């Protein structure tokens, strides 16, 4: 199997790709946990005018009846008006698309954004919903029984890791 791409370079690539698209009306929301780490980096480098939003989609998941409530859900904080905004929704890995579906539903309970674009570090395929990323660092082939996730080291550096899915 090919080695995993370097998360730091992918992050730098996304910054370069997004920079020309940032306007005064742009705001960013990171999805817990990996998406928030990536969004913190992108948000700082792109110097967005609006403060960063963070979202935990625990109350919008579609597997509640099977899995129950996620342990220790984080509080969603959106410190700007969503209505009329051009939103960049940031997650670490795009897989089935179910997290993004849940995030969009939650977002619309805050208002009606002008647009939402999806930014991900890695797309591992395996979509179960008609969702795609407008900005994607890399496409990565991952065996179905493995999980691709972002890690943040003590030095703040990001890296992609494979682990066995539960």
């Amino acid at each position, binding site marked *: 199997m090919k080695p995993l791409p370097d998360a730091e370079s992918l992050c730098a690539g996304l910054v370069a790709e997004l920079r020309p698209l940032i306007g005064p009306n742009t705001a960013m929301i990171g999805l817990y946990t990996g998406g928030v780490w990536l969004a913190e980096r992108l948000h700082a480098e792109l110097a967005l005018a609006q403060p960063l939003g963070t979202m*935990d989609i*625990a*109350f*919008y*998941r579609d597997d*509640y*009846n099977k*899995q*129950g*409530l996620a*342990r*220790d*859900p*984080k*509080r*969603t*904080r959106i410190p700007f008006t969503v209505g009329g905004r051009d939103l960049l929704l940031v997650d670490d890995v795009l897989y089935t698309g179910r997290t993004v579906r849940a995030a969009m*539903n*939650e977002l619309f*309970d*805050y*208002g009606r954004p002008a647009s939402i674009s999806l930014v991900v570090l890695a797309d591992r395929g395996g979509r179960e919903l008609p969702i795609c990323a407008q900005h994607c660092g890399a496409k990565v082939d991952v065996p179905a029984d493995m999980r691709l996730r972002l890690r943040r080291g003590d030095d703040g550096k990001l890296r992609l890791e494979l682990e066995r899915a539960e």
Partner: protein
Amino acid sequence: MQSNPQLNANGELRHLLSIEGLPREVLLGILDTAASFVGVTEREVKKVPILRGKSVFNLFFEPSTRTRTTFEIAAKRLSADVINLNIAASSQTKGESLLDTVANLSAMQADVFVVRHASSGAPFLIAQHVKAHEHVINAGDGRHAHPTQGLLDLYTIRHYKRDFSRLTVAVVGDVLHSRVARSLIHGLTTLSTPEVRVIGPKTLLPTGVESLGVRVFHDMREGLRGADVVVMLRLQSERMRGALLPSAQEFFKHYGLTAEKLALARPDAIVMHPGPMNRGVEIDSSVADGPHSVILPQVTFGIAVRMAVMSMVAGTS
């Protein structure tokens, strides 16, 4: 390990019957989850879809407006369907047994029963008989427990004081009749609060209350000294049988919270009350409406705490 009727095999909350016996991690898990729901209650759309399609039955065998309403709001904000049954005025008066009432409601596809009953242990009895997918939340049983009130009190203390490990908490008044006090004391000790005090006349403190791990004071001034949190209890005159007290005025003189007595507590002390308040009996208006009072935030947090409990139990198999 002894099996806990409130937890499933994985240690997750299946019913909420009492704070007593809940492990520390479960207690903290509820408070953390409630913090996320506080965010939902501050939005324009104060609703999440998580309990869509589920039915919550509020079974109130004893009258209550406030608790029933906050459970109703909490369930609605989780998108559940809510059915309120004021049973004091219905089938029970026609002679139906508690378990027959529940069996009938179960046949109507209930998911969560929120139960208030004048008899201690009634929610336990129901929990022993419900189906695997049904869940019971105790909304107050006799003098025994009122776990969601205890949890919202803990949430409020944590919100203002952050950490329990250095706190002195004083619980004042009619501890004898108070299920609120009992639930809160169990929660505080589970979360390692170093000093929990109860303050009241001998006639309104249960015998052997020290065994709960509290210090007993009969002199309110002495008991309030250095307290970080003062929890006033309602004088439950409707529960009083026989003359435990000379008069409400006499009670206020000795155990009513006034600004002058509150000055003995820490300068940043918070004052709590489970409501409904008897102004001029256990608390002076100037304190109830004063800068130390967090009585109304308690009500707001109570909704988030009940949302957390309902969404945790209803998703547990």
